[in-house]
Protein backbone atom coordinates (compact mmCIF):
# COMPACT_ATOMS: atom_id res chain seq x y z
CA UNK A 1 0.00 0.00 0.00
CA UNK A 2 1.48 3.26 -1.00
CA UNK A 3 1.28 6.58 0.71
CA UNK A 4 2.81 10.02 0.25
CA UNK A 5 6.35 10.50 1.51
CA UNK A 6 5.35 13.83 3.10
CA UNK A 7 2.83 14.94 5.72
CA UNK A 8 2.35 18.40 4.20
CA UNK A 9 2.25 19.62 0.62
CA UNK A 10 4.60 22.58 0.86
CA UNK A 11 6.14 22.42 -2.59
CA UNK A 12 6.93 20.07 -5.46
CA UNK A 13 10.57 20.27 -4.34
CA UNK A 14 9.73 18.01 -1.38
CA UNK A 15 7.97 15.35 -3.46
CA UNK A 16 9.40 12.42 -5.37
CA UNK A 17 8.27 10.79 -8.61
CA UNK A 18 6.32 8.10 -6.75
CA UNK A 19 4.34 10.76 -4.87
CA UNK A 20 3.35 12.41 -8.14
CA UNK A 21 2.32 9.07 -9.66
CA UNK A 22 0.23 8.28 -6.59
CA UNK A 23 -1.46 11.70 -6.68
CA UNK A 24 -2.27 11.25 -10.39
CA UNK A 25 -3.64 7.73 -9.92
CA UNK A 26 -5.83 8.92 -7.05
CA UNK A 27 -6.94 11.95 -9.10
CA UNK A 28 -8.07 9.58 -11.89
CA UNK A 29 -10.54 8.02 -9.46
CA UNK A 30 -11.76 11.39 -8.23
CA UNK A 31 -12.18 12.62 -11.79
CA UNK A 32 -14.56 9.71 -12.32
CA UNK A 33 -16.38 10.70 -9.11
CA UNK A 34 -16.85 14.37 -10.10
CA UNK A 35 -18.33 13.32 -13.44
CA UNK A 36 -21.10 11.30 -11.78
CA UNK A 37 -24.60 12.66 -11.27
CA UNK A 38 -23.90 12.75 -7.52
CA UNK A 39 -20.44 14.24 -7.30
CA UNK A 40 -19.78 13.71 -3.62
CA UNK A 41 -18.18 10.97 -1.54
CA UNK A 42 -18.38 10.69 2.26
CA UNK A 43 -14.69 9.88 2.88
CA UNK A 44 -13.59 12.96 4.87
CA UNK A 45 -16.74 13.49 6.90
CA UNK A 46 -14.75 13.69 10.16
CA UNK A 47 -12.11 16.12 8.84
CA UNK A 48 -12.24 19.89 9.19
CA UNK A 49 -10.24 22.04 6.80
CA UNK A 50 -9.48 25.76 7.09
CA UNK A 51 -8.82 27.71 3.91
CA UNK A 52 -6.68 30.66 4.93
CA UNK A 53 -6.04 33.14 2.15
CA UNK A 54 -3.79 36.11 2.89
CA UNK A 55 -3.74 36.95 -0.80
CA UNK A 56 -6.48 37.31 -3.41
CA UNK A 57 -7.58 34.21 -5.28
CA UNK A 58 -10.63 33.14 -7.25
CA UNK A 59 -9.88 29.87 -9.00
CA UNK A 60 -7.62 28.27 -6.42
CA UNK A 61 -9.88 29.13 -3.49
CA UNK A 62 -13.03 27.92 -5.22
CA UNK A 63 -11.25 24.81 -6.47
CA UNK A 64 -9.97 23.89 -3.01
CA UNK A 65 -13.32 24.57 -1.39
CA UNK A 66 -15.13 22.48 -3.98
CA UNK A 67 -12.61 19.65 -3.60
CA UNK A 68 -13.06 19.69 0.19
CA UNK A 69 -16.85 19.72 -0.07
CA UNK A 70 -16.89 16.91 -2.63
CA UNK A 71 -14.95 14.84 -0.08
CA UNK A 72 -17.53 15.77 2.61
CA UNK A 73 -15.01 17.62 4.80
CA UNK A 74 -16.19 20.51 6.96
CA UNK A 75 -14.81 23.75 5.57
CA UNK A 76 -14.12 27.11 7.16
CA UNK A 77 -12.91 30.06 5.14
CA UNK A 78 -10.80 32.96 6.19
CA UNK A 79 -9.61 35.88 4.14
CA UNK A 80 -7.00 38.35 5.32
CA UNK A 81 -9.16 41.32 4.46
CA UNK A 82 -11.72 40.59 7.17
CA UNK A 83 -9.34 39.28 9.81
CA UNK A 84 -7.68 40.27 13.06
CA UNK A 85 -4.36 40.49 11.22
CA UNK A 86 -5.10 44.13 10.80
CA UNK A 87 -5.34 44.36 14.58
CA UNK A 88 -1.73 43.17 14.88
CA UNK A 89 -2.04 39.39 15.37
CA UNK A 90 0.89 37.21 14.23
CA UNK A 91 0.53 34.37 11.70
CA UNK A 92 1.17 31.63 14.27
CA UNK A 93 -1.35 33.13 16.69
CA UNK A 94 -3.96 33.43 13.99
CA UNK A 95 -3.48 29.85 12.86
CA UNK A 96 -3.26 28.42 16.38
CA UNK A 97 -6.53 30.11 17.24
CA UNK A 98 -8.11 28.51 14.23
CA UNK A 99 -6.59 25.14 15.12
CA UNK A 100 -7.96 25.24 18.68
CA UNK A 101 -11.35 25.02 17.02
CA UNK A 102 -10.22 21.45 16.11
CA UNK A 103 -9.12 21.94 12.54
CA UNK A 104 -7.19 19.05 10.95
CA UNK A 105 -5.81 20.65 7.82
CA UNK A 106 -4.89 24.16 6.70
CA UNK A 107 -4.85 25.28 3.08
CA UNK A 108 -2.90 28.52 3.00
CA UNK A 109 -2.00 31.18 0.48
CA UNK A 110 0.42 33.81 1.71
CA UNK A 111 2.41 36.62 0.02
CA UNK A 112 5.67 35.57 1.73
CA UNK A 113 7.80 32.76 0.30
CA UNK A 114 8.22 29.93 2.81
CA UNK A 115 5.13 30.84 4.84
CA UNK A 116 3.79 27.29 4.56
CA UNK A 117 7.11 25.73 5.60
CA UNK A 118 7.31 28.08 8.58
CA UNK A 119 3.78 27.21 9.63
CA UNK A 120 4.34 23.45 9.28
CA UNK A 121 7.13 23.69 11.86
CA UNK A 122 4.97 25.45 14.43
CA UNK A 123 1.47 24.03 14.21
CA UNK A 124 0.17 20.48 14.35
CA UNK A 125 -2.21 20.50 11.37
CA UNK A 126 -1.39 19.21 7.89
CA UNK A 127 -0.48 22.18 5.68
CA UNK A 128 -1.26 22.54 1.98
CA UNK A 129 0.53 25.39 0.26
CA UNK A 130 -1.88 27.16 -2.08
CA UNK A 131 0.81 29.62 -3.18
CA UNK A 132 3.51 31.33 -1.13
CA UNK A 133 4.73 34.55 -2.72
CA UNK A 134 6.91 33.95 -5.77
CA UNK A 135 8.03 30.57 -4.38
CA UNK A 136 5.78 27.57 -5.09
CA UNK A 137 2.22 26.71 -6.05
CA UNK A 138 2.35 22.91 -5.94
CA UNK A 139 -1.27 22.01 -6.71
CA UNK A 140 -1.16 24.20 -9.84
CA UNK A 141 1.95 22.41 -11.10
CA UNK A 142 0.37 19.03 -10.35
CA UNK A 143 -2.79 19.88 -12.24
CA UNK A 144 -0.73 21.26 -15.14
CA UNK A 145 1.27 18.03 -15.43
CA UNK A 146 -1.91 15.99 -14.96
CA UNK A 147 -3.52 17.89 -17.84
CA UNK A 148 -0.49 17.28 -20.06
CA UNK A 149 -0.60 13.58 -19.14
CA UNK A 150 -4.30 13.51 -19.99
CA UNK A 151 -3.83 15.26 -23.34
CA UNK A 152 -0.55 13.68 -24.51
CA UNK A 153 -0.78 10.41 -22.50
CA UNK A 154 2.51 11.03 -20.73
CA UNK A 155 4.76 13.81 -19.47
CA UNK A 156 8.14 12.08 -19.82
CA UNK A 157 10.05 13.14 -22.92
CA UNK A 158 7.69 15.97 -23.81
CA UNK A 159 9.02 19.44 -24.61
CA UNK A 160 7.39 22.10 -22.47
CA UNK A 161 8.05 25.82 -22.69
CA UNK A 162 6.95 28.20 -19.95
CA UNK A 163 6.45 31.66 -21.41
CA UNK A 164 6.16 34.97 -19.58
CA UNK A 165 7.02 36.40 -16.20
CA UNK A 166 9.20 33.62 -14.83
CA UNK A 167 10.77 35.88 -12.20
CA UNK A 168 7.61 36.53 -10.20
CA UNK A 169 5.90 33.24 -10.91
CA UNK A 170 5.40 30.53 -8.31
CA UNK A 171 3.62 28.54 -11.02
CA UNK A 172 6.82 28.53 -13.10
CA UNK A 173 9.04 27.25 -10.28
CA UNK A 174 6.64 24.50 -9.21
CA UNK A 175 6.11 23.53 -12.83
CA UNK A 176 9.85 23.29 -13.47
CA UNK A 177 10.29 20.98 -10.45
CA UNK A 178 7.29 18.85 -11.41
CA UNK A 179 8.14 18.56 -15.12
CA UNK A 180 11.82 17.75 -14.51
CA UNK A 181 10.84 15.12 -11.92
CA UNK A 182 8.68 13.42 -14.54
CA UNK A 183 11.36 13.52 -17.21
CA UNK A 184 10.07 16.32 -19.44
CA UNK A 185 12.37 18.80 -21.23
CA UNK A 186 11.76 22.34 -20.07
CA UNK A 187 12.57 25.73 -21.56
CA UNK A 188 11.63 29.11 -20.19
CA UNK A 189 10.93 32.05 -22.48
CA UNK A 190 10.40 35.71 -21.74
CA UNK A 191 12.12 39.09 -21.54
CA UNK A 192 15.61 38.71 -20.05
CA UNK A 193 14.59 41.01 -17.21
CA UNK A 194 11.84 38.59 -16.19
CA UNK A 195 14.02 35.46 -16.22
CA UNK A 196 15.89 34.84 -12.94
CA UNK A 197 19.67 34.59 -13.09
CA UNK A 198 21.10 31.06 -12.81
CA UNK A 199 17.76 29.44 -13.67
CA UNK A 200 19.80 26.98 -15.80
CA UNK A 201 20.89 25.36 -12.54
CA UNK A 202 17.36 23.91 -12.31
CA UNK A 203 18.03 22.02 -15.53
CA UNK A 204 16.06 24.29 -17.84
CA UNK A 205 17.15 26.18 -20.93
CA UNK A 206 16.48 29.85 -21.58
CA UNK A 207 15.07 30.95 -24.94
CA UNK A 208 14.33 34.60 -25.58
CA UNK A 209 12.84 34.09 -29.05
CA UNK A 210 9.18 33.08 -28.77
CA UNK A 211 8.92 31.64 -32.29
CA UNK A 212 11.95 29.38 -31.75
CA UNK A 213 10.54 28.25 -28.40
CA UNK A 214 7.15 27.43 -29.94
CA UNK A 215 8.77 25.54 -32.82
CA UNK A 216 10.60 23.38 -30.29
CA UNK A 217 7.80 22.60 -27.87
CA UNK A 218 4.84 20.20 -27.58
CA UNK A 219 3.23 22.30 -24.86
CA UNK A 220 3.34 26.05 -24.18
CA UNK A 221 2.35 27.14 -20.70
CA UNK A 222 1.56 30.87 -20.92
CA UNK A 223 1.99 32.91 -17.77
CA UNK A 224 0.53 36.26 -16.84
CA UNK A 225 2.71 39.31 -16.31
CA UNK A 226 2.37 39.89 -12.58
CA UNK A 227 2.19 43.68 -12.53
CA UNK A 228 1.19 43.65 -8.84
CA UNK A 229 4.56 42.14 -7.89
CA UNK A 230 6.63 44.56 -9.98
CA UNK A 231 8.19 47.43 -8.09
CA UNK A 232 10.20 48.62 -11.10
CA UNK A 233 9.69 48.57 -14.86
CA UNK A 234 10.85 45.27 -16.37
CA UNK A 235 9.86 46.08 -19.96
CA UNK A 236 9.00 49.34 -21.76
CA UNK A 237 5.28 48.89 -22.46
CA UNK A 238 2.65 46.15 -22.37
CA UNK A 239 2.25 46.64 -26.13
CA UNK A 240 5.91 45.87 -26.71
CA UNK A 241 5.69 42.79 -24.45
CA UNK A 242 2.71 41.54 -26.43
CA UNK A 243 4.50 42.03 -29.74
CA UNK A 244 7.46 39.95 -28.60
CA UNK A 245 5.92 37.37 -26.28
CA UNK A 246 2.20 37.31 -27.01
CA UNK A 247 0.88 34.18 -28.76
CA UNK A 248 -1.58 34.80 -31.59
CA UNK A 249 -3.48 32.53 -33.94
CA UNK A 250 -1.27 33.52 -36.90
CA UNK A 251 1.89 32.52 -35.02
CA UNK A 252 0.39 29.12 -34.18
CA UNK A 253 -0.76 28.56 -37.76
CA UNK A 254 2.77 29.06 -39.05
CA UNK A 255 4.08 26.19 -36.88
CA UNK A 256 4.37 22.81 -38.56
CA UNK A 257 2.56 21.01 -35.71
CA UNK A 258 -0.33 21.66 -33.35
CA UNK A 259 0.99 22.48 -29.90
CA UNK A 260 -1.01 22.41 -26.66
CA UNK A 261 -1.71 25.80 -25.07
CA UNK A 262 -2.02 26.06 -21.29
CA UNK A 263 -2.60 28.97 -18.93
CA UNK A 264 -2.91 28.86 -15.14
CA UNK A 265 -5.21 31.91 -15.12
CA UNK A 266 -6.16 34.62 -14.66
CA UNK A 267 -5.74 35.42 -18.38
CA UNK A 268 -4.98 38.92 -19.57
CA UNK A 269 -6.63 38.49 -22.95
CA UNK A 270 -4.73 40.29 -25.69
CA UNK A 271 -1.53 40.46 -23.64
CA UNK A 272 0.09 37.02 -23.28
CA UNK A 273 -2.43 35.24 -25.52
CA UNK A 274 -5.19 36.47 -27.79
CA UNK A 275 -8.81 35.43 -27.30
CA UNK A 276 -8.90 33.24 -30.41
CA UNK A 277 -5.96 31.23 -29.01
CA UNK A 278 -7.38 30.99 -25.51
CA UNK A 279 -10.73 29.74 -26.84
CA UNK A 280 -9.32 27.47 -29.57
CA UNK A 281 -9.30 23.68 -29.68
CA UNK A 282 -5.57 23.70 -28.95
CA UNK A 283 -6.15 25.31 -25.57
CA UNK A 284 -6.72 23.05 -22.55
CA UNK A 285 -7.21 25.96 -20.16
CA UNK A 286 -10.67 24.88 -18.99
CA UNK A 287 -9.57 21.23 -18.71
CA UNK A 288 -6.90 22.50 -16.33
CA UNK A 289 -9.58 24.05 -14.16
CA UNK A 290 -11.64 20.84 -14.13
CA UNK A 291 -8.57 18.74 -13.35
CA UNK A 292 -7.72 21.17 -10.55
CA UNK A 293 -10.63 19.90 -8.46
CA UNK A 294 -9.67 16.23 -8.98
CA UNK A 295 -5.99 16.93 -8.17
CA UNK A 296 -6.88 18.87 -5.02
CA UNK A 297 -9.26 16.10 -3.91
CA UNK A 298 -6.42 13.61 -4.38
CA UNK A 299 -3.91 15.73 -2.43
CA UNK A 300 -6.34 16.36 0.43
CA UNK A 301 -7.41 12.72 0.52
CA UNK A 302 -3.83 11.42 0.59
CA UNK A 303 -2.71 13.92 3.24
CA UNK A 304 -5.82 13.31 5.36
CA UNK A 305 -5.16 9.58 5.35
CA UNK A 306 -1.88 10.32 7.15
CA UNK A 307 -3.53 12.34 9.94
CA UNK A 308 -3.64 10.16 13.04
Amino acid sequence: MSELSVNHLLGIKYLNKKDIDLIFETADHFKEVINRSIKKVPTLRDITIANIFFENSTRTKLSFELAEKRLSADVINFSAGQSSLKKGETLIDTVNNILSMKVDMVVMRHPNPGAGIFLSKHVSAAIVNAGDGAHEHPTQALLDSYSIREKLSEVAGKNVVIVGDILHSRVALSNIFALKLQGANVKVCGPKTLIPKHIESLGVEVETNLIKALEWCDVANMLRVQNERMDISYFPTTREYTQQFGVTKSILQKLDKEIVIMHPGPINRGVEITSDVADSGQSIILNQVENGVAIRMAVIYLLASKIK
Partner: protein
Amino acid sequence: MFKALDENQGLFVLYGVTCRIAYFCSSNETFVSHMSQRVLLSAKEIHIILHRLACQLLENHLDFSNTVLIGLQPRGIYLARRLTELLQQEYKVRNVDLGSLDITFYRDDFRRGDKILEANQTKIDFLVENKKVVFIDDVLYTGRSIRAALTAVQSFGRPQEIELLTLIDRRFSRHLPIQPNYRGRQVDAINDEKVKVMWQENDGEDAVYLVSR
Protein backbone atom coordinates in the same frame (compact mmCIF):
# COMPACT_ATOMS: atom_id res chain seq x y z
CA MET B 1 3.54 -30.04 8.90
CA PHE B 2 0.58 -32.38 9.29
CA LYS B 3 0.89 -32.06 13.01
CA ALA B 4 0.56 -28.30 12.77
CA LEU B 5 -2.53 -28.73 10.67
CA ASP B 6 -3.99 -31.11 13.23
CA GLU B 7 -3.62 -28.56 15.95
CA ASN B 8 -5.71 -26.17 13.97
CA GLN B 9 -8.32 -28.75 13.30
CA GLY B 10 -10.36 -27.87 16.33
CA LEU B 11 -10.42 -24.19 15.46
CA PHE B 12 -13.12 -24.34 12.85
CA VAL B 13 -16.12 -26.29 11.80
CA LEU B 14 -17.20 -26.30 8.21
CA TYR B 15 -20.87 -26.26 7.38
CA GLY B 16 -21.90 -27.03 3.86
CA VAL B 17 -23.65 -29.42 1.62
CA THR B 18 -20.93 -32.01 1.54
CA CYS B 19 -18.99 -31.24 4.74
CA ARG B 20 -15.99 -32.58 2.90
CA ILE B 21 -12.66 -31.03 3.83
CA ALA B 22 -9.63 -31.70 1.74
CA TYR B 23 -6.49 -31.58 3.84
CA PHE B 24 -3.37 -31.07 1.91
CA CYS B 25 0.23 -30.34 2.28
CA SER B 26 0.59 -27.12 0.43
CA SER B 27 3.05 -26.73 -2.37
CA ASN B 28 1.76 -23.20 -2.84
CA GLU B 29 4.48 -20.57 -2.69
CA THR B 30 2.45 -18.47 -0.25
CA PHE B 31 2.86 -21.21 2.34
CA VAL B 32 4.85 -20.06 5.35
CA SER B 33 5.82 -22.48 8.09
CA HIS B 34 3.82 -20.81 10.86
CA MET B 35 0.77 -20.51 8.64
CA SER B 36 -1.35 -23.34 7.43
CA GLN B 37 -3.99 -23.33 4.82
CA ARG B 38 -6.53 -25.85 3.70
CA VAL B 39 -8.78 -26.12 0.72
CA LEU B 40 -12.35 -25.05 1.33
CA LEU B 41 -13.39 -25.38 -2.29
CA SER B 42 -11.60 -27.10 -5.14
CA ALA B 43 -11.75 -26.00 -8.77
CA LYS B 44 -14.41 -28.64 -9.46
CA GLU B 45 -16.56 -27.51 -6.54
CA ILE B 46 -16.24 -23.87 -7.62
CA HIS B 47 -17.31 -24.91 -11.11
CA ILE B 48 -20.46 -26.61 -9.76
CA ILE B 49 -21.25 -23.71 -7.44
CA LEU B 50 -20.88 -21.13 -10.24
CA HIS B 51 -23.40 -23.07 -12.33
CA ARG B 52 -25.80 -23.27 -9.39
CA LEU B 53 -25.48 -19.52 -8.69
CA ALA B 54 -26.02 -18.71 -12.37
CA CYS B 55 -29.17 -20.87 -12.37
CA GLN B 56 -30.44 -19.20 -9.20
CA LEU B 57 -29.90 -15.79 -10.78
CA LEU B 58 -31.74 -16.97 -13.91
CA GLU B 59 -34.63 -18.25 -11.84
CA ASN B 60 -35.15 -14.82 -10.30
CA HIS B 61 -34.21 -12.57 -13.21
CA LEU B 62 -35.01 -14.64 -16.34
CA ASP B 63 -33.78 -12.56 -19.29
CA PHE B 64 -31.96 -9.90 -17.23
CA SER B 65 -33.78 -7.16 -19.13
CA ASN B 66 -34.21 -5.10 -15.98
CA THR B 67 -31.31 -6.51 -13.98
CA VAL B 68 -27.71 -5.34 -13.74
CA LEU B 69 -24.77 -7.12 -12.13
CA ILE B 70 -22.23 -5.09 -10.18
CA GLY B 71 -18.97 -6.66 -9.08
CA LEU B 72 -17.41 -5.08 -6.00
CA GLN B 73 -13.78 -4.00 -6.34
CA PRO B 74 -11.20 -5.29 -5.96
CA ARG B 75 -11.93 -9.05 -5.72
CA GLY B 76 -15.63 -9.34 -6.54
CA ILE B 77 -15.13 -8.53 -10.21
CA TYR B 78 -13.60 -11.95 -11.01
CA LEU B 79 -16.69 -13.76 -9.74
CA ALA B 80 -18.93 -11.24 -11.50
CA ARG B 81 -17.13 -11.76 -14.82
CA ARG B 82 -17.30 -15.56 -14.48
CA LEU B 83 -21.03 -15.49 -13.78
CA THR B 84 -21.65 -13.11 -16.68
CA GLU B 85 -19.70 -15.42 -19.04
CA LEU B 86 -21.67 -18.43 -17.81
CA LEU B 87 -24.99 -16.68 -18.24
CA GLN B 88 -24.13 -15.57 -21.75
CA GLN B 89 -22.38 -18.68 -23.02
CA GLU B 90 -23.98 -21.61 -21.19
CA TYR B 91 -27.42 -20.22 -20.52
CA LYS B 92 -27.73 -18.07 -23.65
CA VAL B 93 -28.77 -14.88 -21.93
CA ARG B 94 -28.25 -12.27 -24.66
CA ASN B 95 -27.49 -9.15 -22.78
CA VAL B 96 -26.10 -8.97 -19.27
CA ASP B 97 -25.05 -5.54 -17.99
CA LEU B 98 -21.96 -5.82 -15.84
CA GLY B 99 -20.32 -3.01 -13.92
CA SER B 100 -17.66 -2.67 -11.26
CA LEU B 101 -18.03 -0.54 -8.16
CA ASP B 102 -15.19 0.71 -5.98
CA ILE B 103 -16.21 1.46 -2.41
CA THR B 104 -12.94 2.96 -1.11
CA PHE B 105 -14.30 6.48 -0.66
CA TYR B 106 -17.41 5.17 1.10
CA ARG B 107 -15.69 2.99 3.69
CA ASP B 108 -16.19 3.69 7.38
CA ASP B 109 -12.62 2.83 8.40
CA PHE B 110 -10.76 5.70 6.71
CA ARG B 111 -7.86 6.73 9.02
CA ARG B 112 -8.84 4.00 11.51
CA GLY B 113 -6.55 1.25 10.29
CA ASP B 114 -2.83 1.19 9.71
CA LYS B 115 -3.13 0.57 6.03
CA ILE B 116 -3.79 3.31 3.53
CA LEU B 117 -6.90 2.67 1.49
CA GLU B 118 -6.12 2.43 -2.18
CA ALA B 119 -8.84 3.10 -4.71
CA ASN B 120 -9.84 0.99 -7.70
CA GLN B 121 -11.74 1.69 -10.86
CA THR B 122 -15.49 2.19 -10.86
CA LYS B 123 -17.05 1.43 -14.22
CA ILE B 124 -20.81 1.61 -14.45
CA ASP B 125 -21.85 2.46 -18.01
CA PHE B 126 -25.57 2.11 -17.42
CA LEU B 127 -28.23 3.67 -15.25
CA VAL B 128 -29.23 1.81 -12.12
CA GLU B 129 -32.38 3.93 -11.77
CA ASN B 130 -35.34 1.55 -11.26
CA LYS B 131 -33.16 -1.46 -12.08
CA LYS B 132 -32.75 -4.65 -10.08
CA VAL B 133 -29.14 -4.59 -8.95
CA VAL B 134 -27.18 -7.68 -7.88
CA PHE B 135 -24.01 -6.96 -5.92
CA ILE B 136 -21.38 -9.64 -6.41
CA ASP B 137 -18.48 -10.17 -4.02
CA ASP B 138 -16.21 -13.10 -3.25
CA VAL B 139 -16.38 -13.16 0.57
CA LEU B 140 -19.04 -11.73 2.89
CA TYR B 141 -17.41 -11.13 6.26
CA THR B 142 -18.38 -8.20 8.52
CA GLY B 143 -20.85 -6.74 6.02
CA ARG B 144 -19.17 -3.32 6.13
CA SER B 145 -18.11 -3.40 2.47
CA ILE B 146 -21.68 -4.12 1.47
CA ARG B 147 -22.88 -1.24 3.67
CA ALA B 148 -20.42 1.02 1.84
CA ALA B 149 -21.53 -0.35 -1.54
CA LEU B 150 -25.18 0.36 -0.68
CA THR B 151 -24.23 4.00 -0.12
CA ALA B 152 -21.92 4.17 -3.14
CA VAL B 153 -24.47 2.86 -5.62
CA GLN B 154 -26.83 5.70 -4.74
CA SER B 155 -24.51 8.01 -6.70
CA PHE B 156 -25.67 6.20 -9.83
CA GLY B 157 -29.41 6.40 -9.20
CA ARG B 158 -32.15 4.76 -7.15
CA PRO B 159 -32.35 1.04 -7.85
CA GLN B 160 -35.67 -0.77 -7.62
CA GLU B 161 -34.07 -3.41 -5.41
CA ILE B 162 -30.62 -4.64 -4.49
CA GLU B 163 -29.62 -8.27 -3.97
CA LEU B 164 -26.35 -9.73 -2.78
CA LEU B 165 -24.50 -12.71 -4.20
CA THR B 166 -21.40 -14.01 -2.50
CA LEU B 167 -19.23 -17.06 -3.08
CA ILE B 168 -18.24 -17.48 0.57
CA ASP B 169 -20.47 -16.41 3.45
CA ARG B 170 -18.53 -16.23 6.70
CA ARG B 171 -21.28 -16.85 9.21
CA PHE B 172 -21.20 -15.43 12.77
CA SER B 173 -18.72 -12.68 11.91
CA ARG B 174 -21.19 -10.05 10.81
CA HIS B 175 -21.07 -6.54 12.31
CA LEU B 176 -24.18 -5.40 10.47
CA PRO B 177 -27.57 -6.91 9.67
CA ILE B 178 -26.64 -7.87 6.10
CA GLN B 179 -27.25 -11.34 4.59
CA PRO B 180 -26.69 -12.66 1.08
CA ASN B 181 -29.56 -13.61 -1.24
CA TYR B 182 -27.36 -16.11 -3.06
CA ARG B 183 -24.45 -17.88 -1.42
CA GLY B 184 -21.90 -20.32 -2.73
CA ARG B 185 -20.78 -21.87 0.55
CA GLN B 186 -21.31 -20.96 4.17
CA VAL B 187 -18.19 -21.09 6.32
CA ASP B 188 -17.55 -20.70 10.02
CA ALA B 189 -14.10 -19.30 10.43
CA ILE B 190 -12.65 -17.65 13.50
CA ASN B 191 -11.46 -14.07 13.27
CA ASP B 192 -7.74 -14.57 12.76
CA GLU B 193 -8.38 -17.04 9.99
CA LYS B 194 -8.57 -15.69 6.49
CA VAL B 195 -10.57 -16.93 3.54
CA LYS B 196 -8.60 -16.66 0.33
CA VAL B 197 -10.41 -16.91 -3.00
CA MET B 198 -8.16 -17.60 -5.98
CA TRP B 199 -9.17 -17.23 -9.61
CA GLN B 200 -7.51 -18.87 -12.58
CA GLU B 201 -7.28 -15.61 -14.55
CA ASN B 202 -5.58 -13.72 -11.73
CA ASP B 203 -4.00 -16.20 -9.33
CA GLY B 204 -3.32 -19.18 -11.62
CA GLU B 205 -5.92 -21.55 -10.13
CA ASP B 206 -9.54 -21.75 -9.05
CA ALA B 207 -9.59 -22.51 -5.33
CA VAL B 208 -10.76 -21.26 -1.97
CA TYR B 209 -8.42 -21.65 0.99
CA LEU B 210 -8.82 -21.14 4.69
CA VAL B 211 -5.58 -19.72 6.04
CA SER B 212 -4.87 -19.91 9.78
CA ARG B 213 -2.09 -18.01 11.43
